[in-house]
């Protein structure tokens, strides 16, 4: 499974301070630690980044790729900042990933950028009209985004469909709707569409000591339905052990007594 390391986010105080001070070291260390722990992409969340967004994203991309030989997941709602990130991105270690577009016309600019820079892109199956009610509605939105992507010239294999994980503590029934959507998304194309989730959304709002457990069990259920990628914390050893164990059950990793150490 593709792991997208989530730790470099404007929401984290330490990261935000380093961003503001343009101090590369804490950001590079966090990126490096995630990469070594098994992340395939490093998410770079600069938030809305309205002021000096372009310069900030460029600086982030260059600083991180100075130390980490992996592609990045560029995560901002500011399209011109995102474009600056794509320009700075070193594609030697893989195509970047845009986070994200949706069926909201305001987000179509992201598809344009994905085509222009030959980037992967996450497509959230939400539209302008609020949250999707169930898996079927998510599939309908996915089909519309896929048609839109074709108009912009984004190949379907570059798209990661995201069912939008909602918190279990307030919308319990949505947990299963999203899992069903992961299964249904794959049937929208042959070869199957790729899928992604923002895993920790599921445990938003639950007591802190229960979040790890909820994330782990939910990840296993998603992987069973064929999830391609997850935005998650690769530094959470129990979560990574769960992922590796699920891969053993699914036959994606050959068992050996030391499989957790690999």
């Amino acid at each position: 499974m593709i792991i997208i390391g989530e730790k470099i986010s404007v929401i984290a105080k330490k990261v935000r301070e380093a961003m503001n001070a343009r101090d590369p070291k804490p950001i590079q260390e966090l990126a490096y630690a995630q990469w070594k722990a098994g992340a395939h992409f490093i998410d770079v969340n600069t938030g809305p980044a309205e002021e000096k967004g372009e310069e900030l994203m460029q600086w982030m991309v260059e600083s991180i790729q100075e130390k980490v030989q992996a592609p990045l997941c560029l995560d901002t709602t500011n399209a011109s900042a995102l474009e600056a990130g794509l320009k700075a991105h070193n594609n030697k270690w893989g195509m970047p990933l845009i986070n994200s577009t949706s069926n909201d016309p305001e987000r179509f600019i992201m598809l344009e950028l994905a085509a222009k820079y030959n980037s992967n892109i996450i497509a959230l199956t939400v539209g302008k009209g609020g949250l999707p009610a169930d898996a079927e509605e998510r599939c309908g939105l996915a089909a519309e985004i896929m048609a839109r992507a074709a108009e912009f010239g984004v190949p379907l294999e570059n798209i990661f469909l995201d069912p939008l994980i909602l918190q279990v503590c307030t919308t319990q029934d949505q947990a299963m709707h999203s899992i069903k959507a992961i299964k249904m998304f794959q049937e929208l194309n042959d070869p199957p569409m790729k899928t992604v989730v923002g895993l920790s959304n599921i445990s938003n709002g639950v007591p802190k000591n229960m979040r790890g457990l909820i994330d782990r069990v939910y990840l296993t259920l998603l992987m069973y339905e064929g999830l391609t990628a997850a935005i998650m914390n690769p530094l959470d050893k129990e979560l990574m052990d769960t992922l590796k164990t699920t891969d053993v059950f699914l036959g994606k990793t050959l068992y050996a007594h030391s499989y957790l150490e690999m």
Partner: protein
Amino acid sequence: MSYIIPKESYNGKVLSVDFGKGNNALTVGGGNCLPFLSFEGELPHPPVIAYEIQDTVPEDWPDTVKNIYKDVSANPVTWAQYCQNELKAKALALRLVSTHPDRENRSTEDVAKIIKEVLAAIEVPLIILGSNHIEKDASVLVAAAEAASGSNCIIGKAQEGNYKTIVAAALAHNHKLIAMSELDINLAKQLNILITQMGFAKEKLITDPMCSALGYGLEYTYSVMERIRLAGLLQNDATMQPPILGDVGMYVWKVKETVASESDVPEWGTLEERGIAWEALTATGMLIAGTNLLIMRHPKAVKITEQTINELI
């Protein structure tokens, strides 16, 4: 509409392992597709066959193969030279059977002397094998590694019960290493992990999932080898990417098809032909399963197998 050959794409690559020195050094592995499917990828190094020689007269070999070496096998040096010079062997595998406690129980000092003499007499790369006695091999192979220091040999076999000292010796004297497990895919992976966790580079490993002769469990060996290749190539499992060894000769030249006399089973045809065919066919099965390095005994079986390799690459 023209026919388009369906192609599998692979994520991983078999590691390249070189052994020997100078112009005669050899490399095995390095491919990024299944055996002989060169339309799907690159197979830079064809499989290599090493002639098996021993440090004592091979009394337990059947006449068919023992007689070929009867004038040279009293001394491993003359035997090695015969294989290299007369049979044009590209590599040799010296099995130190006399060190086994149930045979002559030879000492590590003797081992060191034999290794040095053989290495001084040959130019082709050398594989050094113990007697497959777990405890004794732990000391024999350490002495052998030291005696062969600097010659870039392959030594083995390191097994679950003795790998630590053998790995340390291979590491200290810069040799390649055979990691052997007994027809157990999970143990094969585990042993590779344990060895690399000692600081031994996976790029210097050769994996031996244990061989077997045609008619005596070849299908088990085949499945394990195939699964190792698929894990390494399709799942990009880095622990399953070393080249594979097929130690064919020792498993073939004891089964009844290579031993039973013509008077006992006249319907089976000529004993010599039967034995050669048995070894060549077993080796060919191993090659198709993914073997990169073979150890064999009969020159005619080696020639047939080399011809098969040349026709398939």
